[in-house]
């Protein structure tokens, strides 16, 4: 094993020769967006891009969030899995069995749940992307994979404009998943079809800050 390592590294060094200097990397592309996170333009863009993937998009306030979660889950959902530290208030009006995830639950058990409700690390407006980083309100990766419906609660302040702004805010040493719409494939005649192995339905609930001048 050691021999292969030394040989491959030796081959690379001989292939490169000596004395060449790595090029400067020009970063003339947009590294920051023109809008602050949570700006109304970004929220509208996130909505447009999310709907374009045929995912759901709902707006709520902190006060209306429990009703919004319950409404999105709807009638057909019997078992809902939640990450261990999800804000319980969010699911307080859910009329279904709540399963709190812990690592002892097997994939087969998770497969018997109908839906999952999570928070997120951030969302990217331009690409309609949700990023989950395994924090305790988002759960391990399998939790958002096996149920057929994923309800993701996004705070308005978590919405950034561009991919570089997202990358700068994330810690790559966490296990992360970027999610853009429901599971899909383009493998049949290069036409996009939603719904293969991951959740076939994704619904974003955007929580807007409360306007202090407006009574709820």
């Amino acid at each position, binding site marked *: 094993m050691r021999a292969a390592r030394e040989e*491959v590294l030796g081959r690379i060094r001989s292939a490169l020769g000596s004395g060449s200097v790595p090029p400067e990397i020009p970063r003339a592309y947009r590294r920051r967006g023109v809008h602050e996170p949570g700006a109304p333009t970004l929220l509208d863009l996130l909505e447009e891009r999310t709907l374009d993937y045929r995912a759901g998009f709902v707006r709520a306030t902190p006060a209306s969030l429990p009703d919004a979660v319950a409404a999105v889950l709807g009638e057909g959902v019997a078992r809902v899995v939640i990450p261990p530290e999800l804000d319980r208030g969010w699911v307080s009006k859910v009329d279904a069995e709540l399963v709190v995830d812990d690592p002892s639950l097997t994939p087969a058990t998770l497969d018997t749940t109908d839906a999952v409700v999570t928070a997120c690390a951030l969302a990217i407006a331009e690409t309609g992307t949700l990023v989950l980083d395994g924090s305790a309100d988002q759960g391990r990766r399998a939790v958002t994979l096996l149920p057929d419906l994923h309800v993701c609660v996004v705070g308005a302040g978590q919405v950034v404009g561009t991919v570089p702004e997202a990358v700068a805010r994330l810690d790559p040493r966490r*296990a992360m998943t970027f999610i853009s719409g429901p599971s899909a494939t383009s493998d049949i005649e*290069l036409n996009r079809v939603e719904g293969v192995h991951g959740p076939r339905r994704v619904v974003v609930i955007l929580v807007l800050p409360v306007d202090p001048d407006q009574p709820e």
Partner: protein
Amino acid sequence: MTPPTAPAGVGGLSNGMSFPDAARLALGDTQLRRNLRAATGTIRAKRASVVAEVEDWEELREAGRQIKASAMNRLPELLEQLEREVASRGGVVHWARDATEASGIVTELVTATGARSVVKVKSMATQEIGLNEALEAAGIAPYETDLAELIVQLGHDFPSHILVPAIHRNRSEIRDIFLREMPGVDPHLTDEPHVLAEAARLHLRRRFLEATVAISGANFGVAETGTLVVVESEGNGRMCLTLPETLITVMGIEKVVPTWGDMEVFLQLLPRSSTGERMNPYTSMWTGVTAGDGPQAFHLVLLDNGRTATLADEVGREVLHCIRCSACLNVCPVYERTGGHAYGSVYPGPIGAVLTPQLTGIERSPSLPFASTLCGACYEVCPVKIDIPRVLVHLRARHVEASGPVPSPEAVVMGATAWAMREPRRWGLLQRITRLGRLLSRGGWIRRLPPPLSAWTSSRDLTAPPRHTFREWWAENHPQDDR
């Protein structure tokens, strides 16, 4: 000393058939040509529209190109850093000089777990090394889980596209394969894409839940943090990367990028170039082992298999920048007509025509650098600006040099033309001789030349030489400019 190329007789780099022979077969298949035209037309339009909405696309391409060039320049240092970071987070790094060694490492790792089957994420590297064949020989069943790979595997077929390996199949052919090969499938299966996708979901779900070992490739490996990145659409990747106890990832050494920040470039370039989406549905990123989340044993196999030989060619090495988006296949007029099988390699299309001959050595894939019209469309769409036409021409020259002292008719003609063009008088004389070709023409076209020039006209018609050359016309009309 030039590093060795990929070994012959193992893996999917070369099936031994020449491009012209294989292309002739493919061109006779009208169903195939219809499938390809429809599919590449769809994806070209999608890519063009999502690329057009990115105002800084050219700046991103330039950054992507230079990040890759920089990574190749610093390859030893970056690979050692990647190894260190992965190891410090509980992963085990292995090095493989070639396909045989890589397959051997993976097979041993799987055997050690006691598993008799593995689930696989679509991976060009594992196709390249012929891993499925090696696993089967050791009594381990490899299950492909990407929809297109599943279609190829169930159809006992070969992949023909980097992104969509079953692009050569239309929906009704796919339905027929499923009806024939999928145990327990609904016998009333229709050919609607969502029905076919649902059939694949049901077929694979149990397999995902029971799998203990998964095998993947990697789109990127970040040296700075040890993070591996897999970009996908269906969720089969997430299933494989998350549910089993053991994960084995096979990654070509050229997939390393220096920093986490560099991902801000590639996560914009790749999805738009590949599936024509603003972002692909799922991108998974993991660093070694994460306690309580996903596989608790992780192995990374770093693969050479001709990559260092490619790196040794100062012109050809930029091909290693490829991020496997397949945009160049979708715009190539040759690919659109012949399909991927004609290239005889898991890497088809323009990128395959420059990558395969360098990995195998040009003597094993001599016809591939000629499988192009040099129209340049591939360069225009390449997200990391690989100058494919330039490398094609370079490899053609290398092939001519390697062909030894007996020059081909083409080399003789090109040599004679070069000699004539060095001297205006010689060139004028050559043009007057060429005019004799008018005697062979009918209606302005020459359809057949005598041997050895017949080699040219056997596959193309030639316009008849003009009555007057441009130089003669110029001399008549601009006597004062005569020189």
